[in-house]
């Protein structure tokens, strides 16, 4: 479905993403994890088109989309959410979602009907007529998800949709994400909440200092010494192993 080939992004002297490659297989949930500042969100902007890669390519369904504008990629079927939620604050929840639905539905009544459907799916049904600015953090995260979903994407990029939610809210939204996948939408998600990553992802990529340092099923990746060191510092993996032996 999606393939990133050796993507590099430089901002002046800073290399945010360095020769990163990853694949998201159709119908799967792929995780992208890594410490803060690793370049995860930058990699997302390369995939969604808000930045173009300095080097390397982004392929979607076999086609090179590296230079396409964001709205063109949305039309192709790539939708993203924002880590820092970006609601249309002056509009109602329904109107927010309808903007996404308008991508595939020209008529306002069709778009609004579609928006209502999507809102119910992500649990925003009762909030449809509320102003987007009156939503709680959890509500805004759901709104991000709903808007992206309303564009009827083939690939959904989720940038920390669970960050800032409490455990019970996370528990509520995990089945929603799984249901989206079961409907045939491929998902690539940045996530720090490991409970969710372990629960949802079939394949996980670990990004640290702009490079992909590990990939594989979540359980294996979490035991990878390189990954542990990326999060906890050099020597941490060895120390943890010693502690386990002594315990």
């Amino acid at each position, binding site marked *: 479905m999606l393939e990133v080939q050796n993507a590099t992004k430089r901002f002046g002297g800073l290399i945010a993403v360095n020769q990163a490659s990853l694949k998201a297989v159709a119908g799967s949930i792929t995780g992208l994890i890594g410490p803060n500042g690793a370049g995860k969100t930058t990699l997302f902007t390369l995939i*969604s088109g*808000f930045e173009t890669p300095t080097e390397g390519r982004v392929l979607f369904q076999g086609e090179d989309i590296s230079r396409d*504008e*964001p*709205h063109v990629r*949305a*039309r192709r079927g790539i*939708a*993203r959410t*924002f880590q820092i939620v*970006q*609601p*249309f*604050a*002056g*509009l109602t929840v329904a*109107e927010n979602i*309808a*903007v*996404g639905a*308008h*991508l595939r539905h*020209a*008529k*306002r009544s069709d*778009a609004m009907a579609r928006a209502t459907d999507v809102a119910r799916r992500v649990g925003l049904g009762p909030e449809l007529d509320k102003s987007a600015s009156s939503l709680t953090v959890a509500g805004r995260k759901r709104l991000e998800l709903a*808007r*992206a979903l*309303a*564009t009827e994407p083939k690939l959904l990029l989720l940038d920390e949709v669970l960050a800032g939610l409490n455990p019970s809210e996370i528990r509520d939204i995990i089945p929603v994400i799984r249901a989206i996948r079961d409907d045939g939408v491929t998902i690539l998600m940045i996530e720090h909440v490991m409970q969710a990553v372990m629960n949802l992802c079939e394949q996980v990529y670990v990004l640290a200092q702009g490079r992909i340092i590990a990939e594989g099923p979540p359980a294996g990746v979490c035991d990878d010494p390189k990954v542990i060191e990326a999060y906890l510092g050099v020597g941490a993996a060895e120390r943890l192993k010693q502690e386990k032996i002594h315990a």
Partner: protein
Amino acid sequence: MTFRDVVPIIVLVALLALVPVFVTANTVLNFLVFTLIIALTAQGWNILGGFGGQFSFGHAAFFGTGAYAAALLQARLGINPWVAFAIGSAAGALVGWGIGYLSFRSGLRGSYFALVTLAFAEVLRILANAAAFTGGAAGVLIKLDVRPENFQFASRGAFFWIALGLVGGVLVLTRWIERSRFGAQLVAVRENEAAAKALGVDTLRVKLGAITLSGAVTAAAGGLYAQYFLYVDANIAYGTWISVEAILAPIIGGLGTVFGPLVGAVALHGLGEITKLAAGTVPGIDLMVFGALLVVAVAFAPDGILGLARRLRRSFQQPGASRHA
């Protein structure tokens, strides 16, 4: 858009159309025609600024283009005034598209966009003031020849109906925008451009569409002005005064609403006239009222008269609920 969406517009326009039947005083009709021209100018601004959130400080560029095109095409080239008027509006659309293409493609937003539009209007004003073709500082006179096929009428009432027809037409156009995909995308651009892009909105195309429509409507107002007063010069047509009028009326009436610009124009100029009558000879007193009204509107009714009315109505219907509105 359904028929029900335009019913309030039809009712309002029909009621206003009765005015010349009962009022025949030239001063009153004069005032009403002028207010309608301002309302039309402001309606144009509202499409781009109110719905699209792109605040132009230079709508004089479109107003002036419409006015000069209408005047010059008939005075210099002998083209029929009705045709000249239509071409003037089209020219406004073209100028709108041009300014939009140059500034939106370079990613100008907010105050930068405002300043660039102001600059465009000023450049046009200076050019029109200097060029021989436009009559320089002397301006252009349209020959008095009162015939309907000449877009000149013996009665001010006829002119009032034409202005009202145009304002009504743009009310319908604005209602359509409000109910259409284009409008939803335009509002999305206003609220959050990055989010709109992520949802597949071609933000450049949407903004260009808005500024083109906006330019056409405001240029039509300019053409109407030229046809009514039969004279334009650079300081009238491309003057800052009209840019300010175009911004003030929607802000006072209600930004991004269908009736906002009309309500704002009537409120502003109605109050201005009343103070002129009351204060008599104090020069510029109506401008002071403009200023005071703007301060009051921004402080107490940031969503304009229409927004204020909506909030009051809601708080009457369910006392105590207004605090959360």
